[in-house]
């Protein structure tokens, strides 16, 4: 009689396992309110929390978890997870060029815009089949008025060997640097080849190469360099930080930088991803980004204060020079660009 009530170690372990399995079920149900967002760290992530997650998503019960890293490792992770039924992120912050590339790789879900009420206010150019544009800016010329007597007018007189070691170039922005050099030397958004010779000449003349935007900002601040090319939004941030720089919208054209969000095909919580995308297009969130980060809103309903608009935006004349990238060309040649950049330009 007493034997039948005996609980041995094995029974106890089995029971514990069953309990644990049971406990996991409600936990899974709770997960549906969790949105895992892949994003860059630093300011961008902080501002996502400030302008989107805390005011718009938290009150509706969404729990946002961030996977912060630069985009190359996040893209590598997305590709590594491609064959999994359930991925580990619901939404990923990527540049338009990278969204295009990830879509080509078959990793991104096609967006169903009927699930996004705020999408009706989206600037048509920011509506990608595989992602939504969040903010945009343009590549402009930055110069220090104290060190450069004649302000440059475009890429040609910026990416010029005459500046010697006063010219700064960012390693990670090889694509836009190649585009700018291409435009400066008579190329186009679909042909950067003419610019290569110009870049090599600048490097030979002593142009300095920096690993990151922050390192370049530091060099501008210490007056190690006097000019460079950069997103207008970054220039505004740096001006706010007290760095003595002016911006010029290049006469050859202003290549656009669009940053947006895409949804992996195997996102565990697609409803959450749609909620995030919709909140991101809310006018208040977009206005917050314009003021805090200096990027232009991608929805027509956002009202940016006039003085901010003057600094971050582009005049009508300049807007005519905004050019979008040829994403197919960039994606197709990216490996070749990197090879050239690493071996022939830096090497």
């Amino acid at each position, binding site marked *: 009689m007493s034997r039948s009530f005996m609980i041995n170690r094995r029974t106890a372990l089995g029971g514990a396992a069953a309990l644990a399995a049971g406990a996991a079920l409600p936990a899974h149900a709770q997960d549906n309110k969790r949105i895992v967002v892949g994003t860059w760290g630093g300011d961008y992530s902080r501002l996502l929390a400030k302008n989107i997650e805390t005011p718009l998503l938290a009150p509706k019960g969404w729990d946002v978890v961030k996977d912060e890293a630069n985009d*190359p*490792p996040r*893209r*590598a992770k997305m*590709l590594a997870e491609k064959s999994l039924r359930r991925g580990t992120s619901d939404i990923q912050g990527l540049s338009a060029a990278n969204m295009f*590339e990830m879509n*080509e*790789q078959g990793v991104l879900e096609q967006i169903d815009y009927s699930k996004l009420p705020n999408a009706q206010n989206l600037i048509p150019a920011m509506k990608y089949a595989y992602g939504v544009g969040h903010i945009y800016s343009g590549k402009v010329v930055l110069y220090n008025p104290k060190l450069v007597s004649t302000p440059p007018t475009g890429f040609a007189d910026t990416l010029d060997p005459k500046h010697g070691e006063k010219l700064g170039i960012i*390693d990670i922005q090889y694509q836009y640097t190649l585009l700018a050099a291409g435009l400066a030397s008579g190329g186009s958004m679909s042909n950067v080849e003419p610019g290569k010779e110009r870049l090599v000449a600048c490097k030979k003349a002593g142009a300095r*190469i*920096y*690993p990151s935007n922050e390192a370049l900002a*530091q060099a501008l601040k*210490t007056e*190690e360099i006097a000019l460079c090319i950069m997103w207008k939004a970054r220039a505004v941030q740096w001006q706010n930080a007290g760095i003595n720089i002016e911006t010029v919208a290049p006469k050859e054209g202003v290549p656009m930088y669009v940053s947006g969000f895409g949804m992996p095909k195997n996102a565990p919580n697609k409803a959450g991803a749609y909620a995030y995308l919709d909140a991101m297009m809310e006018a208040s969130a977009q206005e917050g980004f314009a003021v805090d980060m200096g990027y232009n809103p991608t929805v027509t309903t956002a009202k940016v204060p006039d003085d901010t608009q003057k600094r971050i935006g582009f005049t009508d004349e300049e807007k005519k020079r905004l050019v979008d990238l040829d994403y197919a060309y960039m*994606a*197709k*040649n*990216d*490996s*070749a660009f*990197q090879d050239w950049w*690493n*071996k022939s330009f*830096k*090497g």
Partner: protein
Amino acid sequence: MTDTALAHGPVVEKRRGDGLTAAALITPATIFVALCLLAPLAILFRYSLNDFIPAKKMMVEAVTAANYVKFFTDPYYTSILLTTVRIAVLVTLVCLVVGFPLAYVVARTQSRWKHLLIISIVLPLFVGNSVRAAGWMVVFGNKGFVNASLMGFGLIDKPIEIMFTEKAVIIGIIAVNLPFMVLSLQSVIEGIDRAVEEAAFSLGAPPATMFRRVLWPLALPGILAGTILTFILAMNAYATPFLLGGPLFKMMAPLVYNQFTQQTNWPFGGAIAFILMTVTLALTVAANLIIQRRARS
């Protein structure tokens, strides 16, 4: 009945345990190593034989040695391998030369502050590599500690370029690896009886001869352990060359990372990883054999 069971139970268990204990003890570690090291290595090796289509950035199933051939036929890549080997050898030698006297002093000191000395050697290991590199960045910058001090004293009028150069990387890696060398040497030197050194002196050997004929051969196991450890760490250094070397300086580990993340070229990244591993292993084994043969002769 119960008594008999009690009396026989332990004996039976012991007999059963005899055969199983050893297996049971090594199984968890074996499974862990097999799953977490060998399996990924095997997968990576398989990937390194695949093809890559640059225009689509896609890996295509294949069995080809093209990635390995590409590495060894392109001077860009072979020069990175040579730089890595050169820096690893240099760092190891400097660590040995600088570390030996320090290890000797620590091993032989009778001071009551000995434990503090050891802690101060180990202390840098409490801070992660990248944090330490960030500290060096503050020291080496154009307006950093070194340049600001030198300019402040009027010794130079233009900042010396240290940051983003090979010099910065070498100093950074030496700082990371030195504790490993000192600790390996110190534990072995401590085990050498002081009386052996005194015997050499009493027989008329000058310090240099004592070092060459007595201390060095006896400390050889520690020297081997220290150099192997330092060399492997230097060959695979990632954070230091990445942060202090800047965009123009390349070593193997950052190159592997670049191929995987920046270029999404897994096959070539896998091939480079295997080349790095093989070269490191081969050089380590070769150095080991040479030193041991020397010691015997």
